[in-house]
Every structure is written in structure tokens, then in C-alpha cells.
């Protein structure tokens, strides 16, 4: 089937570029190469790969199945929190144990635990471990929670929403409400996750304090590249073939899919939950590179940005999501990071830190209006793959065939 070759080709190209990118960055890094690329920029690139992964999950739900979720970035943040709990606990335990090692009497288990709790929760005026930290001492458990917590949350939410056939704008609003509720909850100081302080020091890997950040940053780049590659392959496998057909069918006319006998609600639930797990994994790889995860990261606006990236990159094609996330997030950090030179108009100086959001919003509007296929659509021009545009034209070869306008009546 010619379709397969086309998709196969874009997958091979994507993976080859990803591998090449990873090798080049490694060779130019401070940690393992000639040191042209600073460690902080390696981290930025590694984080960008994670954003590309969450963008793929967003593209699956929105671009393929038409569910405009405005909550996937919150699920991404939850993944970060889950891995952050272990990182913070374990790292603090190390420090506490080594500082208590000099004490004349060896500390009891309780004393160690209290000291860790005091270190972690002192900022929010608490000295006890909340219940949700029950598994924080186990890396394996927290890794499972990286997938389970976003998955279960999305599963329960999706089950409630899809079962009552909430769709379209209403569903988007509900996902925003979920996101808002989640971030408001996380902002509270007594929720056991350190309120607006969030979890910090995540860049320090327990047991590896003698390894420099320059090296760790390259490790994470590899991890993120591997996750993105695997995630991309999984997504290709999911959307290629009949499952993808059904998803696109749901996007374009879900009632029709139902009359073909497909349980549409179950499909949506499976997809929503699966992509939530994917978002969680992406977040778990992102936040150790960022070093800190806090509720501001999960504010409703972040999930809206995610949708903007996918729209600008081109939804409904996986590499479009990757391009959108990478391009917009890198450009955005350039503008907001103060690196972009101010533009002086004489009477007014454009400071990009302030104006970037306006530019982003404007490009979103322009893309939506004039280039609905986004940046990814440019590849169609190369391939000359054009959608049939028959507006107003004869629909068929036969003399008596209706024109399109009549046909829709």
C-alpha cells in the first residue's frame, strides 16, 4: 500500500534526524564532547525533546481523534511531581544520613525520617510525612506512579465525561476546569506537595553526587531522545491502520462511527488514558532537567500553549506536533529569556519579554486562519499532496450529478 511507504518514510527520516541530533549534541556538549554547547543549553534541548513527546500525546487526542484536551500539560506536570517525590526524598535522605553519621549515638529510623520530613516540609511549616509520600522511598513505586497517577486521573475523568457524551467545546472546558482544580489544589500549602514551592533540587540525582551536571544533562538528553523515539514509534503504530482510521472517523463524524458498530466512548477513553500516561512519562523526564516542578507549571495556560504548539506545527501528523513543540518552545525561550534584542521605535521600545505572547497569539490566529495544516503542511507542498478542493465545482463526471451545494441539502 502506497500509504504505508509514505508514512514509513517520514518515520525513518524522523528517527534518523533524532539520532543524528542526539549524537551531534553529545559531541558538542561540555559533559562528553568539545564543549561548544553549554550544559544549560543541553538541558534546554533535552527538555525540548520531552515537550515534543507530550505534544505527540496531544496530537493523538486532538489531531487524530478531535478531542481538544486542555489538560494534558497538567498530566505532564503530575508525572514530574511523581518522579520529583522520589528524587527529593532520596537526595534529602542522603544528606540527612551523612550529617547524622557523626552523631555519638546512631540515629533511629524514626529520627532519620523526622529529619528528612523536617528538611522537605519545613518551608510549609510541617514536619511530618503526608500519606501521599508513602512510596517516596521506592524508585520503582514512584516510576509506576508516573504512569498510574495521570492515567487513573484521566481514566476517571474520561469515563465520567465520555459516558455522558460530553464532546467538543464542553469537553475542552471541562478539561480546563480539571486543570484549574488540580493547580489550585497543588498551590495549597497543606496538600503534602509543598504548595507553591513545589519540589526542587530535582537535578541532583541521588547516589550520583560526584557526577557533574554536565554529564547528567547528556544522560537526560539520551533518555528524552529514547523516550521520544519510542513514543513516536508507538504513536505511528497506533495511528497507522484501522485504529487510526477509527480515530480519524471519530474526529470527523463520530455518530457515523457509532452506526458502524464501534464503541466510540471506549475508544476515546482508551486514547485519553493512554496519552495521559505518555504525558506523565514526558513530564518525569522533563522536570529532573528543569530542576524544579511547581504548581505554576500546571496552570491552565500551559495546557493551552500545548494546543497552540500542536496547531502551529500541524495537527493530525505526528512530526507536525514535534516541530511545533520544538520550534515554538525554543523560540519562546529565546524571546522570553531576554536574548532577543529590543526593538527601538523611537517613541516606544518593543521589549520581547512583554510582547512575545502577543506575537505567539497572533501567529496562532494566523496559522488557524490561513495555514490550518501548520508548519507540517509545508511538507505537503514539497510532496504536492493536495486535498481535493471541489468547492462549487461539479461533483461528478455525470451530466445530471448535483453540485456540491445541492448535495448537502
Amino acid at each position, binding site marked *: 500500500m502506497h500509504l504505508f511507504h509514505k508514512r514509513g518514510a517520514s518515520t525513518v527520516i524522523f528517527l534518523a534526524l533524532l539520532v543524528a541530533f542526539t549524537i551531534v549534541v553529545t559531541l558538542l556538549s561540555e559533559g562528553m564532547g568539545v564543549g561548544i554547547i553549554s550544559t544549560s543549553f543541553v538541558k534546554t534541548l533535552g527538555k525540548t525533546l520531552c515537550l515534543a513527546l507530550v505534544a505527540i500525546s496531544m496530537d493523538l487526542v486532538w489531531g487524530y481523534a478531535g478531542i481538544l484536551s486542555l489538560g494534558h500539560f497538567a498530566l505532564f506536570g503530575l508525572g514530574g511531581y511523581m518522579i520529583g517525590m522520589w528524587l527529593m526524598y532520596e537526595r534529602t535522605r542522603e544528606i540527612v544520613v551523612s550529617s547524622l553519621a557523626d552523631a555519638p549515638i546512631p540515629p533511629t529510623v524514626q529520627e532519620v525520617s523526622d529529619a528528612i520530613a523536617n528538611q522537605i516540609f519545613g518551608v510549609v511549616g510541617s514536619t511530618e510525612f503526608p500519606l501521599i509520600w508513602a512510596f517516596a522511598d521506592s524508585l520503582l513505586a514512584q516510576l509506576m506512579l508516573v504512569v498510574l497517577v495521570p492515567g487513573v486521573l484521566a481514566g476517571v475523568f474520561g469515563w465520567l465525561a465520555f459516558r455522558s457524551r460530553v464532546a467538543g467545546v464542553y469537553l475542552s472546558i471541562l478539561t480546563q476546569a480539571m486543570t484549574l482544580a488540580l493547580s489550585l489544589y497543588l498551590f495549597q500549602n497543606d496538600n503534602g506537595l509543598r504548595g507553591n514551592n513545589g519540589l526542587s533540587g530535582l537535578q541532583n540525582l541521588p547516589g550520583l553526587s560526584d557526577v557533574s551536571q554536565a554529564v547528567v544533562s547528556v544522560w537526560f538528553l539520551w533518555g528524552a531522545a529514547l523516550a521520544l523515539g519510542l513514543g513516536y514509534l508507538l504513536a505511528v503504530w497506533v495511528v497507522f491502520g*484501522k485504529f487510526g482510521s477509527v480515530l480519524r472517523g471519530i474526529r470527523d463524524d463520530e455518530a*457515523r462511527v457509532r452506526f458502524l458498530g464501534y*464503541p466510540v466512548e471506549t475508544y476515546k477513553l482508551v486514547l485519553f488514558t493512554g496519552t495521559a500516561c505518555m504525558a506523565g512519562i514526558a513530564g518525569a523526564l522533563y522536570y529532573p532537567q528543569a530542576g524544579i516542578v511547581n504548581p505554576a507549571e500546571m496552570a491552565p495556560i500551559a495546557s493551552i500553549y500545548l494546543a497552540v504548539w500542536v496547531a502551529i506545527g500541524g495537527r493530525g501528523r505526528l512530526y507536525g506536533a514535534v516541530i511545533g513543540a520544538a520550534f515554538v518552545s525554543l523560540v519562546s525561550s529565546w524571546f522570553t529569556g531576554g536574548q532577543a534584542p529590543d526593538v527601538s521605535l523611537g517613541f516606544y521600545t518593543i521589549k520581547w519579554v512583554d510582547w512575545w505572547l502577543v506575537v505567539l497569539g497572533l501567529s496562532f490566529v494566523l496559522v488557524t486562519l490561513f495555514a490550518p495544516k501548520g508548519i507540517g503542511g509545508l511538507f505537503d507542498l514539497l510532496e504536492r499532496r493536495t486535498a481535493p478542493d471541489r468547492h462549487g465545482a461539479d461533483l461528478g463526471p455525470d451530466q*445530471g450529478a448535483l453540485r456540491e451545494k445541492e448535495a448537502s441539502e
Partner: protein
Amino acid sequence: MSTLLEVSGVSVSFDGFRAINNLSFHIGPAEMRAIIGPNGAGKTTFMDIVTGKTKPDKGRVIWGARHLSLLGLSEARIAREGIGRKFQKPTVFEDQSVQENLLMALKNPRGPLSVLFYRPLAAHLARVAALAEEIGLADHLHRKSGALSHGQKQWLEIGMLLAQEPKLLLVDEPAAGMTPAEREHTTNILVEAAKTRAVVVVEHDMEFVRRLGCKVTVLHEGSVLAEGSLDHVTANKEVIDVYLGR
């Protein structure tokens, strides 16, 4: 003769307006039936009720040898029970190729897991090719269905119906917007299908109905006005008054 679908005493109102009024209808396992009636008679609403899209206020809809009640089942479940439907306005997945449309409709397990691991077997592709041949789209298998003509879309939808291998086909105005030659082809497809299953066709075009050569049910204001051969119902004075005479 045994009954495949039995609708009895069904009524439904939309905001107080009775679209279907104490309607009773039944059809056997390999029977062709035409439903005619003026605009707003409730023909499409009748199909909505049978396929689970609209819940009736009262009445029974009984299906098959096991006397399963269709009321309260989801649309997808009813479709899996063997009721296929063609809509008044052609609805195919325009963004997908003719082959993809047909493969999606082809009778196979519908659950997410089996669909995820599904890869088309040679037999399935052959079946799709045969169907495409039957509906005259053999040369268009890899074209996006959005690029087809109106008549071709209608056929594709009929092909998707056949691919589902339903026991009952509900076909709403299949010939709308077709040329005479296309209409004839459509008649042939439907007559062929009715040899092995029940087919209910809603159509306004009397010539088309005549060529189907089957029993006719006339609907008016949500209930059955007359039933019998085409000549029988067209001779009926009431039918002439409310439908033909206008």
C-alpha cells in the same frame, strides 16, 4: 413467515410535536420494503428509533429470533447486532481513502484492542476489492473519498453497509442526486442485497420504487397510512390526497 424486526405501538414527540404516532411495522429476514410518504412523515425518525439514535416515548422494538429489545441499547451495539444504516445525506469519511472506508466497515471485531492489533488479511483486502467492484469504485480504491462524486459517495456508503454484512439494511433516500443510469445501478445493488437480507428503502422517487418491485408502506404524520403493492397503495384515495396528489 418469521419476523426479523418488529416495531409496535411506537410514539415519539419532539417538544410536543408527535413525529411518530403509534407506529407498527414488521419485516421478515429476506425481504425488501419501500417506505414512502410526504416530507416530515417520520421516515427518517423511524430509522433513528430502530438504530438507537432516538429513544421513543413508548412502544416496543423487538429484534431477531431471540426477541431482543433494541430499546436502551447503544447505537454501536445495535449496529453490531446486524442493523446497518445509510443516511439521507451521504456520510463517508472524506479524509480517508475508499479502501480505508470499506475496511473500517468490514465485518470484524469492533473493540479497541482487536482493532489496535488488526492488520488487513489478504481475504479482507480481496473482499474490499470485490465490494468496490460491485459499487463501481474498483478504480478508486486509493482515492480519498472526499474526492468522489456525489453519486459515488452514495455508493460507497452502500458498499460500507454491505461490508458490515448486516441482517437488516436501512437505506434513506439512496437515489437522491443520482443520474438515471446511477439510479438503475443502485436499484440492482439493493435488489441483489435483498436476496439474502432484509432491506428497507426510503425513497421519494416513484420510478425507483417501482423498479424495486416490493411491498410498499406509506407513512403519514408518523403512522402507517397504507401498505401493499405499489399499485395497491397508489390507488388508495387517502394516499393520493396526502402524498401523490400534491
